[in-house]
């Protein structure tokens, strides 16, 4: 009797306190779907759908229209790959990456080592190198184009040349022989991004076990070049790979400083000197409203970046860390 009543009671309590949608298996599934829904729906609409639609439109003739259906096979791909301006843009970005990636790597590593090696004022120096990261490419372009590398006599770079006793006035951006505009573009990006990579290197440096240096010291290796090459540099391997890959991917997507320093949104200015792929795609897709060719070019560039990233990863042995 008693047990029966108890069990009835319990089931009543159970039903009353835990409605079906609060039962563990249902609740978990509902909760999971609700929590992940914004991210999945967002990525579906703004990442997967564009890639899907972009692929379809890249096989369509789509000038001044966003619609697909006027199928032209691989014509857009053939067109854009045989276009000298597109091929020039690939060449331009390879030259740019060949300068900016190693320069950023060694400068940010060097500054990180310097900052890490001093005690007094360390956080001040760290802030000083890091704070340009807060500045946008547009603002930096204003400083570089109109302040430092202004082609008129009052530009700071021309002023420095004058102080060294030369009357020469260099048109830093328009001059093609020698191509000074590379100096402008590369130093601008260096200033903006070196602090960012320095922070990543500093994090890597602080993860190195100090007992390694103590052991080396006991063995007679004083802190210096030798411990750098035998301890620091090998221990920074994963950090170095991360810096190289991040920097490379960012360089291949250069747009802001090229369009602001060399040209303008409305005018192409000196952009013919060095037109990176994103600027070219911008002019084709947004300027000429040729979405078919623009999408084809975007997909080619995406594939290229992924391929080079994977190859770089293989060369540096990314994934071997496990």
């Amino acid at each position, binding site marked *: 009797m008693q047990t029966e009543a108890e069990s009835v009671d319990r089931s009543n309590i159970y039903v009353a306190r835990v409605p079906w949608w609060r039962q563990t298996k249902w*609740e*978990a599934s509902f*909760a*999971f779907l609700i*929590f*992940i829904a*914004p*991210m*999945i729906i967002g*990525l579906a609409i703004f*990442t*997967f759908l*564009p*890639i899907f*639609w*972009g*692929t379809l439109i890249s096989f369509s003739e789509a000038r001044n229209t*966003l619609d697909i259906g006027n199928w032209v096979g691989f014509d857009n791909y053939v067109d854009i790959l045989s276009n000298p301006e597109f091929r020039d843009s690939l060449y331009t970005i390879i030259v740019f990456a060949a300068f900016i990636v190693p320069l950023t790597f060694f400068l940010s590593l060097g*500054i990180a080592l*310097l900052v890490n090696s*001093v005690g007094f004022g360390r956080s001040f*120096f760290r*802030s000083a190198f*890091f*704070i340009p*990261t807060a*500045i*946008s490419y*547009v603002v930096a*372009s*204003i*400083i570089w*184009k*109109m*302040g*430092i590398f202004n082609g008129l006599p*009052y530009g700071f770079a021309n002023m420095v040349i004058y102080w060294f006793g030369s009357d020469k006035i260099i048109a830093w951006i328009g001059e093609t022989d020698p191509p000074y505009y590379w100096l402008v573009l590369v130093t601008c990006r260096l*200033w903006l991004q070196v*602090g960012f990579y320095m*922070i*990543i290197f500093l994090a890597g440096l602080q993860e190195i076990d100090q007992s390694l240096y103590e052991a080396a*010291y006991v063995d*007679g290796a004083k802190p210096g070049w030798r411990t750098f090459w035998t301890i620091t540099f090998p221990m920074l391997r994963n950090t170095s790979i*991360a810096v*190289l890959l991040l920097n490379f991917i960012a360089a291949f997507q250069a747009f802001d400083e090229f369009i*602001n320093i060399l040209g*303008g*949104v*409305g005018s192409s200015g000196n952009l013919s000197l060095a037109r990176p792929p*994103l600027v070219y*795609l*911008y002019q084709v*897709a*947004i300027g000429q409203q040729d*979405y078919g060719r623009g999408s084809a070019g*975007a997909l080619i*560039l*995406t594939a290229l*970046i992924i391929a080079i990233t994977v190859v770089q990863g293989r060369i540096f042995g*990314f994934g071997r860390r496990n």
Partner: protein
Amino acid sequence: MQTIQDEQWGTLERPAAARTNALKWTTLAIRYILLIALTVVFMFPFYLIVRNALMTQPEITAFEWNWWPEEAQWGNFTNLFENSEIDMAKGLRNSAIIAVVNLVFQTLFASMAGYALARIPFRGKGIFFAAILLTLMVPSAVTFVPTYVVVAKLDGVNTLWGIVVPGLFSAFATFLFRQFYLDFPSEIEEAARLDGNSYFGVYWRMLLPNSLGIMAALGVLSFIGSWNAFLWPVIIGQSNDTQTVQVVLSSFLTAQTINLPALFAGAAVGAAPLVIVFLLLQRYIVQGVRMSGIKG
């Protein structure tokens, strides 16, 4: 042993110790000289922006270099907002809206998804995680043409939502939040569950308050990123009503006639909010950058 003794008893009047000390001080001096020289170089553009923003046009274009304005022209800043050619006030307003929306929702969506992936049992979870990780492979800026096509189809051109919404879904932040919540002690969470909290309650009462640090780090990075973004806003928000501060400054820079003091005053106004954010929240920004170091 010899070297260690030198290190410990460096003040002793021994020739070897004295030589080591001299070398040490010279090295240290060289390091500081290098650091100070580099600091001057890295600070120079900031100086230049302030100098030009406070000068008159003839002072800037003078043949002799003036290090500092004869009289600081604070009026350059008020003129900037009265200038009919550029709408700086609207640019600042649009950028502020975009950056705040980005900060709040990018962080919220990523932490929600990260919590679901780390803590809520679900069959087929792996597929969702794989789909999110897959998008990390795609270089975001390159896909701007296809994304433009989709946003244009949805009538998002020249709207603020068209600028901000496509950037709210960060697979990378989701990944970081997932890692963070995986490390969160499950005992606390189970205790909260036994107290009758739903998954939402656990998230809201336990996990959210305990992940404010990582939220600040990722949130401030997304704020900086969206304030400084140029490519996407210039494609989607060309109209006068939707220009961000970067687009306003860019069209000012490429205008036919350039008023240099106004241009630099505009650059200073556009950069100042972030410099302040940087100085105040540097700890979180450094943490956020370190986390992005593992992206490679």
